[in-house]
């Protein structure tokens, strides 16, 4: 359970660090090829996890371009796969949330003396409910993920086994009650994590 949380939390933090600024930039910046970039992000939101796992596996395998890192069948490889799955989701939802903020607000804030960064920060705060939804979606997609982490982690007892891969293993061995119990724990974990994130929505409002 601790490993599940560790892998998911690490991947979520990294995805958020990339995804929130990335989504904000994609929403506010004007550049050639923006539509193509947006289409790529939307495609990334529907990436089949098992394909992500396969690609990460090939990159990290001994004969792969990143094989010398020695990350295959480690928690690091699982985090990498989950970051690839969650980041497009966070980017996409952040982008659409920022686009949902009144487009007149940013120039208005600039016209009141806000720097680009201050105005962007204010816009992001206006979009905070959507950004939290992006984090929740990202979290949901990786805490429940099994295909990619199984492939790149190897489901090694005591090292890379997480709740989802343990459920698969226990089910295959016919230990249905135990598998079900693990499933309930996974669900409870997800509920508590989402509760924490949703509570954060209200606390992000700034004082006057």
């Amino acid at each position, binding site marked *: 359970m601790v490993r599940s949380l560790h892998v998911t939390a690490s991947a979520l933090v990294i995805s958020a660090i990339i995804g929130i600024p990335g989504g904000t930039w994609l929403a506010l910046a004007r550049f050639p090829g923006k539509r193509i970039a947006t289409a790529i992000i939307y495609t990334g939101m529907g990436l089949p996890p098992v394909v992500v796992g396969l690609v990460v596996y090939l990159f990290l395998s001994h004969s792969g371009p990143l094989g010398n890192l020695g990350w295959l069948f480690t928690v690091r490889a699982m985090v990498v796969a989950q970051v690839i799955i969650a980041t497009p989701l966070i980017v996409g939802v952040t982008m659409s949330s920022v686009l949902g903020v*009144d487009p*007149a*607000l940013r*120039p*208005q*804030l*600039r*016209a*009141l*003396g*806000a*720097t680009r960064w*201050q105005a962007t920060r*204010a816009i992001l705060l*206006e979009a905070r409910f959507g950004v939290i939804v992006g984090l929740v979606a990202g979290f949901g997609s990786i805490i429940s993920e099994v295909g990619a982490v199984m492939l790149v982690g190897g489901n090694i007892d005591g090292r890379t086994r997480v709740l989802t891969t343990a459920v698969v293993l226990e089910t295959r061995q016919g230990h249905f009650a135990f598998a079900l119990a693990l499933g309930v724990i996974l669900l409870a974990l997800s509920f508590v994590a989402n509760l924490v994130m949703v509570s954060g929505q209200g606390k992000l*409002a*700034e*004082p*006057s």
Partner: protein
Amino acid sequence: MSDPLYTLTDVQHIYGTRTVLRIPSLTIQPGEIFTLVGPSGAGKSTLLRLLALLEAPSRGQVSLCLNGRQVTYNSASTGDRRQLAMVFQRPALLSRNVRANVGYGLRVRGQQDRRAQIDAALKRVSLSHLAKARPRTLSGGEAQRVAVARALILEPQVLLLDEPTANLDPFNVRLIENLVREQHDLYGSTIVLVTHNIFQARRLATRIAFLLDGQLIETASAEAFFATPQDQRTAAFVSGELIY
């Protein structure tokens, strides 16, 4: 006469393939209530955005004289930009309460103790009773008064107003016009006002520029603009005839 506050030289502004503004030359003096009039689509708001240094002109130069230095869109520092404040036609407010909106400009300037100034600004726009209200609960007039208050609180050297009373009732129109006059007379701000309402221009302006199809047709003192318009299109606009 002192140096002009604004000097525009060979300004053209292009959106896509359309030239929306073409102004060979224009100056605005410090201390004026300079009013831009003209029908919808004449380029008034575009010109105001250039004056607010929110956009650079596609061609030519918009230069602003601040503390003896000439600054442009490209050379203006954050400190320079903070000498200006603009009120947009539609008040885009933060979802935070009225007090937070009015204090926003002070907050981004790093001012810690804002309470007294916010209270005073709210009093000026007769909104003290709505300090804790959320923008979605405000009427159009109240929201626009919040937008005006958050600009006035900054005591800007230049106050730019884009149709600040469009779609407002007579009470709010008078209140905002009085605030503009007060800002000019008591605080010495230069005002650049965009309006399609010639009666408002007559009430407030010291000098008026008439824009039509992105071109500056005529610039004159308020008195001369109405009494002896030099261009027949200006005369037609002043007399209330529609020009398209």
